């Protein structure tokens, strides 16, 4: 117990150690996070009128980001499956970074739901009258928190074992890894059901929403990890092979292909049928009369995704520069497509046919940026602490020693 507390204290202290670039990055994230906190305090005092949301478009940027981040969290499983099921060696020692990112992404997702609540201080009502299993939102509360706990346990256990320089007991984490695989798929499915179960919103009321969610998540998540792993590689002496990155590239390519295919299915069904259902899709892709707020966004997303996918198909993206370029485009493209492009149009027109557009306010954008900054701050600290522990530079029998030679973990 005392050893565990020492571990936590040492990790906490270690999170303040780094060179000027580390400090600059952390300072930047802290400032943005504090700006977001400041904006949230304003929202807390004055209500959600500080956002661009209305009774017509009652969910916006917050729920869009929430949806996107649930996907990013689920994407860790794209590392877990190759390693634990297909025994992929390249990715073996990288899984932990995917799981740590899942932790950060879930924290961000939960924060985004919290800031969207009108009465966050009544959160305990969930514990007292839980509308389970009827409300999909209660399912979401369970699967998201469960997934957070699973990943906290798996990462925490492995890192603590490395700190103690002892071999992790398979019994203590293998079952959880396999539960987490199914669970990761469930968090995204349940979040999709949140939307697709509403008969009053034809734009969402489609069975393809859940598979589309999974496909886009399995593209954007590993794309983000490709970039992050390179940052880790260049800032630490942790070994990350190009082959591992290229394995991820394959995963991204396949997932993105499926995602584009499903998007095409959706577009065909909407526009070829051309029933009253199509109004929201028309608003999104072509605009309804003078109301064209999302048109530039969705075409930017489609452009980015198409170019990214073509790049991924071509051999040039075996080179890291092109691969990174494709990943950045894809991350942004999916963010638009799955965030703003999926949440907002469902509200336009309203079920009674009124057209009111939605533009996020500065305050709500600051809150969103703040949450992103906080999430990245959490992820940076987690990685910053994990790498030296895995190397044995911080262990039960010694304080942090940056000069120590990496010691292999006991197997």
């Amino acid at each position, binding site marked *: 117990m005392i050893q565990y507390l020492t571990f936590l204290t040492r990790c906490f202290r270690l999170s303040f150690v780094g060179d000027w670039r580390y400090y600059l990055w952390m300072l930047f994230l802290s400032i943005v996070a504090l700006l977001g906190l400041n904006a949230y305090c304003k929202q807390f005092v004055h209500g959600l009128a500080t956002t661009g949301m209305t*009774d017509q478009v009652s969910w916006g940027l917050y729920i869009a980001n929430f949806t996107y981040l649930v996907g990013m969290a689920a994407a860790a499983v794209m590392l877990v499956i190759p390693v634990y099921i297909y025994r992929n060696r390249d990715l073996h020692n990288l899984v932990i970074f995917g799981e740590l990112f899942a932790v950060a992404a879930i924290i961000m997702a939960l924060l985004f739901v919290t800031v969207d609540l009108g009465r966050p201080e009544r959160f305990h009502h969930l514990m007292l009258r839980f509308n389970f299993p009827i409300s999909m939102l209660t399912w979401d509360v369970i699967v998201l928190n469960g997934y957070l706990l699973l990943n906290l346990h798996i990462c925490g256990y492995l890192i603590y074992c490395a700190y103690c320089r002892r071999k992790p007991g398979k019994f203590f984490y293998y079952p959880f890894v396999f539960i987490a695989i199914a669970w990761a798929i469930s968090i995204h499915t349940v979040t999709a059901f949140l939307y697709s179960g509403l008969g009053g919103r034809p734009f969402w009321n489609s069975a393809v929403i859940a598979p589309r969610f999974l496909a886009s998540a399995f593209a954007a998540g590993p794309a983000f990890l490709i970039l992050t792993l390179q940052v880790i590689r260049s800032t630490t002496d942790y070994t990350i092979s190009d082959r591992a990155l290229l394995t991820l590239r394959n995963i991204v390519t396949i997932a993105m292909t499926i995602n584009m295919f499903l998007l095409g299915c959706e577009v065909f069904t909407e526009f070829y049928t051309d029933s009253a259902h199509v109004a929201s899709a028309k608003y999104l892709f072509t605009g309804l009369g003078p109301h064209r707020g999302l048109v530039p966004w969705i075409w930017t997303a489609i452009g980015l995704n198409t170019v990214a996918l073509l790049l991924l198909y071509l051999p040039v993206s075996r080179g890291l520069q092109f691969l990174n370029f494709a990943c950045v485009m894809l991350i942004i493209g999916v963010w638009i497509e799955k965030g703003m492009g999926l949440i907002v149009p469902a509200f336009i027109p309203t079920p009674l046919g009124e057209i009111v557009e939605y533009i996020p306010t500065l305050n709500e954008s600051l809150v969103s940026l703040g949450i992103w900054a906080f999430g990245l701050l959490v992820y940076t600290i987690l990685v910053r602490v994990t790498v030296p522990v895995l190397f044995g530079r911080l262990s039960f029998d010694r304080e942090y020693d940056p000069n120590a030679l990496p010691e292999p973990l006991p197997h």
Partner: protein
Amino acid sequence: MSVRIWDGPSATLDDPQPPRMTRRSFLRGTTAAAGGLAALVAALNPLREFTQQDEFTLDQFLQKHYKEMTPEDMEKALARIRAEVEKRYGVRPHLRDVKPRAGVEFVYALNLSRCIGCRKCVYACVAENNQSRSPQIQYIRVIEMPRGTLDTEKGNHHYTHPKVPDINHFYMPVQCHQCANPPCVKVCPVEATWQEPDGITVIDYDWCIGCRYCEAACPYWARRFNFAQPDLAGDAINPDMSYLSNRPRPKGVMEKCHFCLHRTREGRLPACLEACPTGARKFGNVLDPNSEVAQILKTKRVFVLKEEVGTLPRFFYYFDERYPNSLDPEAVKIGQAIGCFPGSPAPEALA
């Protein structure tokens, strides 16, 4: 060569010793901590504007869900709300918890041949139910519809005529349909909204967490959210109020039409019905075979809006078969005499 930031030899070549607390590093650490703390306090500064203490009382925080309250709990809650209303608006309200009556199921019927789109019902509702005036919340939306369709997407929500009706249109008021299979109730994660035995779907404003999932689920756009603290002048308050209906709402919670249950459960008619100048609105107990609504459902060709979404509304529309091609001329005459009320303010003005 790549440079190691966090680990590895190159970052610490000048300093071969492991990190050690020196006076300099101590000072630096303290300054950084103090700076961080100051920044945190500055970020939290807007909370100081938080002056409406009555919004966050411990009593309200600990209050139980409506269905779990004992009569004593309810008395306590009512006393608290009475005191809050009196303090904020200077009016002593006649506040009570009106229970549903056995053998009653309320139903609304609306004669589209008689509705002239004057929007009197909209404003009678706002006055009766203590809705926020700024930003203005309205439970009833009247849609001007071209003839030959029931698709509300073809309608106009923001018509402005000095005189109504426009004889080439008909007018379709929409409010909560009090569905027998309500999607809003299904989705609420905390059971803050439910269907009462007399068919009215109600909201416990002290239980709602403001997630707006019900608002997304409603196919009739009948639910409203308090995006800001409702603005309601003291002389605009209707002191005749009940717990589940028209007592003043706090910011951050949902509200909607509740068939004026504080009136209708005590034998009176809804405010929108009383305000209607043409008698287009009919309300009553469908379980009573002699009631007007029971007769209408039996004899008129009634229909419900968006039957295909399977919500089973308790709000029925019908056209008067005597006037298959026009509005009731008598109602048109009334419309010419009274003029039209403005529609809802543009949403931009809300923010």
